[in-house]
């Protein structure tokens, strides 16, 4: 088997750089596993670790600092058959921290090699997320104030099943790389090494001191048994296979006639939970069933089940251009929360307009015809009041007919909900 290293771009690192050792170990591991360049993609980001994709003769993807895992995720989801390897320094680890945590949680079959040399080599030896507090680096006193991250403990806590820490200079580096590469799921190897160009100029760090530091660390918990689960892309495809193929968008042909053909604006003013938005949609469907164009704009706060809910609907026999409300012909006023949002609109209604009001809701002075409805007396619950108001509207020979409303309910609901809706409507129509 031939080396996967790039003959046209021989590796160039500073003399003594740990990355060079890791590069050759990775090549050996891939070779021993029987890989060729065609079934491997090396994804890298910025910094010295970002040279790996160039030095290998494999598929290569080099992107922005800290984001290598994001590209790798897209590649692996698109091509699950590829062996996807991400190299990242302790710089990329810090800047892309959210992606590291999410990769651990996701368990997509990627291998992340953290080439951990405790500083930013390429930009002048500044502190990174793993720089010891006692180290002397290019960031002045700043690293003394921040604790370094133990990425293995963090990765395990975030759900990674294969997490392991190793020195560049350990004899079993190739074996440990192979273990990580062959794991079906997310694996992270934290590989400690020296940066002779920057870090060890001012700090004593050798293979021996790395060994003693590693020995001094507590043993990692058994993340493998704690976090083992089905690999993400496999689990994704299993879940997706259970889903029903979505139906094509509904098409609505005209089945009835509208009471008026010109532009009609209807505004439903209510509170959250009154199904105001559904009522607006029903008006649109009713309009479409009568061959009308329809638009619906809604206005509600970020809260659910609290606050105002407003739906603005326009029906017209011609194409609707401006979707704002200019001269509403009907306003349905169900709750003070909605009314308070459209006070000016209510005050400037045309004399020919109609307001259907739930009793007790105060309105500003307006010249419209007001129809009071006592929903409580009809035993209509709050969540059915908007629908009940449509039933009231269908008796006014304005905007909506009963035929249109029935057609809308048929389009929108299954049989069970349709019947429940018709029961509500019957209560209002039998008055």
């Amino acid at each position: 088997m031939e080396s996967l290293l790039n003959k046209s771009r021989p590796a160039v690192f500073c003399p003594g750089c740990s990355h060079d050792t890791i590069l050759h170990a990775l090549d050996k591991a891939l070779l021993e596993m029987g890989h060729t360049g065609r079934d491997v993609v090396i994804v890298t980001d910025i910094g010295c670790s970002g040279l790996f994709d160039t030095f290998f003769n494999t598929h290569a993807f080099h992107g922005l600092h800290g984001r290598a895992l994001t590209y790798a995720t897209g590649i692996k989801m698109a091509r699950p058959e590829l062996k996807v390897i991400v190299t990242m320094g302790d710089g990329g680890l810090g800047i892309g921290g959210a992606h590291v945590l999410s990769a651990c949680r996701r368990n997509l079959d990627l291998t992340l090699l953290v080439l951990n040399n405790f500083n930013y080599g390429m930009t002048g030896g500044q502190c990174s997320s793993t720089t010891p507090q006692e180290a002397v680096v290019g960031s002045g006193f700043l690293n003394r104030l921040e604790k370094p991250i133990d990425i293995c403990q963090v990765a395990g806590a975030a759900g990674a099943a294969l997490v392991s820490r190793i020195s560049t200079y350990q004899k079993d580096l190739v074996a440990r790389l192979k273990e990580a590469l062959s794991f079906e799921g997310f694996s992270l190897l934290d590989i400690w090494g020296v940066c002779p160009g920057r870090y060890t100029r001012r700090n004593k760090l050798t293979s021996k001191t790395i060994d003693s530091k590693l020995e001094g660390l507590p043993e990692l918990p058994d993340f493998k048994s704690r976090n083992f689960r089905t690999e993400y892309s496999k689990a994704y495809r299993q879940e997706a296979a259970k889903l029903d193929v979505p139906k094509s968008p509904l098409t609505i042909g005209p089945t009835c006639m509208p009471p008026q053909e010109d532009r009609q604006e209807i505004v439903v003013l209510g509170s959250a939970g009154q199904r105001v938005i559904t009522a607006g949609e029903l008006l649109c469907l009713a309009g479409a069933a009568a061959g009308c164009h329809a638009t619906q704009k809604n206005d509600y706060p970020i809260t659910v089940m609290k606050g105002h809910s407003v739906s603005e609907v326009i029906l017209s026999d011609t194409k609707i251009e401006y979707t704002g409300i200019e001269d509403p012909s009907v306003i349905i006023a169900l709750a003070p929360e909605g009314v308070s949002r459209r006070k000016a609109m209510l005050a400037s209604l045309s004399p020919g307009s109609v307001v259907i009001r739930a009793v007790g809701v105060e309105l500003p002075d307006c010249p419209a015809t007001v129809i009071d409805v006592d929903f409580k007396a009809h035993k209509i619950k709050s969540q059915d009041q908007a629908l009940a108001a449509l039933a009231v509207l269908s008796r006014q020979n304005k905007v909506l007919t009963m035929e249109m409303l029935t057609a809308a309910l048929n389009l929108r609901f299954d049989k069970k909900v349709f019947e429940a809706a018709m029961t509500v409507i019957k209560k209002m129509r039998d008055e």
Partner: protein
Amino acid sequence: MAFSLMEGNEAIGWGAVAAGCNFFAGYPITPATTIYNTMLKLLPPNGGICLQGEDEIASIGFCLGASMAGMKVMTATSGPGISLYSEQISFAIGSEIPIVIVDVQRLGPSTGSATKGADGDVQFLQWGNSGGVPVIVLVPVDVKDCYELTVHAFNLAEQFRCPVFVAANKEVSMTRETFCMDELKLPPIVDRRKANSTDAFLPFGVSGDQMVPNFLPIGSDRLVRQTSSTHGANGYITTDPDEIAAMQARLEAKITRNVAAFSYFEEYCVPDAETLLIAYGVTARAARAAVEALKDSNRKASLLILKTLWPVSENLIRDKARNYKRVVMAEMNLGQYIRELERLLPDKEIGFLGQMNGELIKPKQIMELI
């Protein structure tokens, strides 16, 4: 005539699928979330992939990886998310990664108003990334446009290997509307041009008058090299000034030289009008109403609706404005695209109406402007 009823965001989702989109990744944000909801409904049951990234940077990153692995990808967000996309957008530009990016604009600056519409990102979409290379930005007026322009956006992304924006607005994206699916005018689907199997593959190589490199996906039989660094035809870093200059020039020319082929617009010519109203996006609807209302008056105006904002359709705008004394524009910002008109039409009297209060510009306001 049979209607379908959906909001703009749903139409963008259906349009994407019609264009062959099989990968979507996004992060929820009002008013773009319903695009993500739609893609989650449409893609996984049909063998596609829909992911929710841990943030916007991840979401677009997933898309870039998947696109280079051969999928047709889309992401959707609003202004705050476009800010986070910025570094990845410049990557897609410089490294010629096809992607459709939907910006459902909301009122800014910053987190602004999540549920109020605006067209405040119009210059930002073009210039909000490093490097200053052109992008393509399409702007829908209504739900039907959301569907059609999304299909065009995919085609353009594939043809030119670049990010293509659909610059929607909350007022189009979250407005439900009837439209007739049978009346959609959909172009034939375009796929990125594949490298043939005999020649040596250069990931960024072009020959003759070819402006866009041939594509092979990561994972194909021949090795593919993708990089965000300044590169030569072979995908390795280059420091050769001539090679760098040629690539930068090509990145610009492949977009700007072809703008006439994708200058989407509508026009309403009113005989004897001396004023041309130019509008885009949801404001074009009020503009149509205004022009219609004034067509028999002595203040009549013609209307040009631009659906391609970037690159600027310079020849089209100059040509359409030629016979008018005065050109006016209304837009839902404090004056962004009007700059382009002022630049192109120095000899015309220019009128402008900008509004940024979360409300639609009304037909009456435009009638006053005319």
